[in-house]
């Protein structure tokens, strides 16, 4: 390739010199302090840009970066865009931009950005995470909670007074507020197919006995009473825990779950709940083949009218929004009471998706946007567009969520105990899920299940304590 002519322009010696020069340049670039900073920042930003796309920042305005976990094409995204656009239209000096990071990578991106000292101004991150709060990456909101909300029909109301107070209290970490529960209140309910209920003349049950009677109607009609996910075991063990709360009471349940190492699962009230679930299992009340279904496939059984009821969290309308047939009519009811049970039937496992104010430089601006989200304007629109149950008292309730809204509004007791703030961590949850799978799949009976829960709990504490 190198002919005589080209040799005159670039000899091998020249080429080597150039290569050495380039390498030396790279080495210098890596060693010179001023350039190091720029190089590192540029490299890190490049990494982040692969995951996060930011809207261009308009000049002359304070730009608030909001990392929100939804991407274009997802059901939730248009609502987030609506909230942002409406807010920006009302502002002269502030512009909110979205960082459309995928939920699965979002926390890793957030950790990376925090580590380099440039976190987003706002972050939506699900129920409050005490490890995150205690690490110092979140700013306490205590000094702002009693300031006026500024937006909507009640602009002079103290900001946090607009929310369900039990929920607000539940989410404190070390007595401090870190999150604003403005992205919805979540609890478990049972959704039902309204067409089925009308056709078979069944009504939403209030008690466990009534629930079984309703389920028997569908079994007799050749319709699976309940759908269930086996590959995604989350719902299986919450079937049991929810019923166990009704039979044994909240304190006993929480003690057995994690709070008291000595409290055994192997006691009559928990065994009773397990035996009731075993009757459902052995009586084939769950959809055929549920063992091989993930949560989406399971929900599709309900949405395809192959199952009459679906025990799921109130995120269901938002999560499945795009897959719900236009003519599919559904509504929800609270998990029924257990006759003679020790548990408060108004109790709800309630938690909220929060928007956190991270360590922002723009405190008043970020707080203002959180207040906007807390206003009835945004909360009602969220209910309208996503079918979300609001944590704001008196907010609009989507028609499909009436049961859930009642549950949230009337709950005398709430608990966020499935989350780390109360010590129920992944490892223990995973061990309990394993026991639930074995029980629901028929490998163990009710007695074996509660013993399995005990064994899982003891193994967890043993490993933890060394």
């Amino acid at each position, binding site marked *: 390739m190198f002919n005589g002519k080209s040799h005159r322009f670039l000899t091998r010696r020249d080429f080597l010199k150039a290569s050495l020069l380039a390498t030396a340049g790279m080495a210098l670039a890596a060693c010179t302090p001023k350039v190091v900073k720029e190089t590192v920042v540029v490299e890190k930003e490049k990494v982040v840009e692969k995951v996060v796309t930011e809207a261009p920042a308009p000049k002359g305005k304070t730009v608030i970066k909001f990392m929100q976990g939804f991407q274009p094409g997802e059901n939730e995204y248009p609502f987030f865009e609506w909230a942002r656009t409406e807010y920006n239209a009302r502002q002269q000096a502030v512009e909110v931009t979205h960082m459309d990071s995928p939920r699965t990578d979002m926390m890793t991106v957030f950790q990376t950005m925090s580590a380099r000292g440039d976190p987003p101004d706002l972050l939506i991150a699900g129920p409050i995470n005490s490890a995150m709060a205690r690490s110092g990456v979140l700013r306490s909101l205590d000094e702002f909670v009693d300031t006026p909300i500024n937006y909507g029909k009640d602009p002079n109301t103290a900001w946090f007074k607009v929310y369900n107070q039990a929920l607000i209290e539940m989410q404190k970490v070390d007595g401090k507020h870190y999150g604003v529960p403005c992205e919805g209140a979540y609890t478990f309910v049972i959704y039902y197919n309204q067409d089925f209920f009308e056709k078979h003349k069944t009504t939403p049950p209030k008690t466990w006995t009534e629930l079984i009677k309703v389920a028997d109607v569908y079994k007799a009609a050749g319709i699976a009473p309940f759908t269930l996910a086996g590959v995604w075991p989350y719902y299986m063990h919450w079937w049991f825990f929810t019923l166990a709360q009704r039979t044994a009471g909240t304190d006993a349940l929480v003690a057995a779950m994690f709070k008291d190492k000595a409290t055994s699962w192997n006691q009559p009230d928990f065994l009773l709940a397990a035996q009731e679930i075993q009757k459902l299992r052995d009586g084939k009340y769950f959809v055929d083949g549920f063992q091989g279904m993930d949560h989406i496939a399971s929900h599709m059984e309900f949405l395809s009218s192959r199952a009459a009821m679906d025990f799921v969290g109130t995120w269901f309308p938002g999560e499945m929004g795009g897959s719900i047939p236009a003519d599919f009519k559904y509504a929800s009811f609270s998990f029924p009471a257990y006759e003679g049970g020790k548990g408060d039937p108004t109790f709800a496992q309630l938690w909220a998706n929060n928007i956190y104010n991270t360590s922002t430089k723009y405190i008043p601006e970020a707080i203002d946007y959180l207040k906007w989200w807390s206003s009835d304007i945004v909360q009602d629109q969220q209910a309208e567009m996503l079918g979300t149950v609001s944590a704001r008292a008196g907010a609009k309730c989507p028609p499909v969520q009436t049961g859930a809204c009642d549950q949230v509004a009337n709950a005398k007791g709430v608990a966020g105990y499935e989350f780390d703030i109360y010590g129920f*961590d992944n490892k223990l949850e995973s061990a309990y899920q394993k026991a639930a799978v074995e029980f629901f799949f028929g490998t163990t009976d009710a007695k074996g299940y509660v013993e399995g829960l005990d064994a899982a709990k003891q193994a967890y504490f043993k490993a933890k304590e060394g």
Partner: protein
Amino acid sequence: MGRRGRNIVILPFLAPAVILYTVFFIYPALRAFYISLTDWSGYGAAKFVGLKNFAELFRDKDFYGALRHNIYLLIFGGIVTLSLAFLFAVLLWQGRIRGAGFFRTLLFSPSVVAPVAIAVTWTFVFSPRIGLLNGLLRSTGLGNLARPWLGDLKLVLSLLMIVGIWSAVGYYMVLFLAGLQRLPQDLYDAAKVDGAGPVATFFTITLPLMRDVLVTLIGLYTIGSFRTFDLIWIMTGGGPANASETLATYMYRTALGVVRFSSVQRIGYGTAVAVILFLIVFVATILSQRLGGRQEVEY
């Protein structure tokens, strides 16, 4: 050009790659060893805890369960994958099959499909209600054999292994083919003259001459098998009841707490799993090289 002169020529060419490799691979890998000695949620400072994570890991039943699954996938998956790949390669190499090019392409095609797409496709195949497999069984009067495949605690790992074999055979077949094509024809001609049949030829000429390729591919398969993540994570998430958990899925689940984005992350503990995984793969690779790679192939 003397040795020193050669080094001067080589160094500038190597330096950029070495620098990049050091910064983006060697340093993070060494850093992982340090992180495995800490208790760290991903936020704030990591707390140094010495070997506590490893001590906990060695008492962890889930860890041993995942390791057992890895060994199962390695041994049975490896034997079937490499045997089939070798068999197909020999058949195609011998040229006795009509349309060899077509079959080669057909067998290799899963290797060019993204593992995510393979996982999603097979999830549909195994779906209990709308799946191809159960549909086929029901339509042929074998409905009593239909089952929730990926929800079967005893079958799920084997099913994942079958999908893994299906997707990997073509890749290993092509590598075997490349090895076979360098074998000298005169040895086969001589064997033919001596009256050796196809089986004797295979065991006395082909297999010994392919020993180095086989050892290399066993090493590659070992590494690949322990690293398998995407297929399992998408199809079962390591479940149900940890029945398909492997070290890679266990590491991910523990380190990144992916159940929900509010989950507690134990990055130090998860990294300890990663370190063990690295050591296993490292030792397995060295062993496989030592056991079979030393003998030079002589024609």
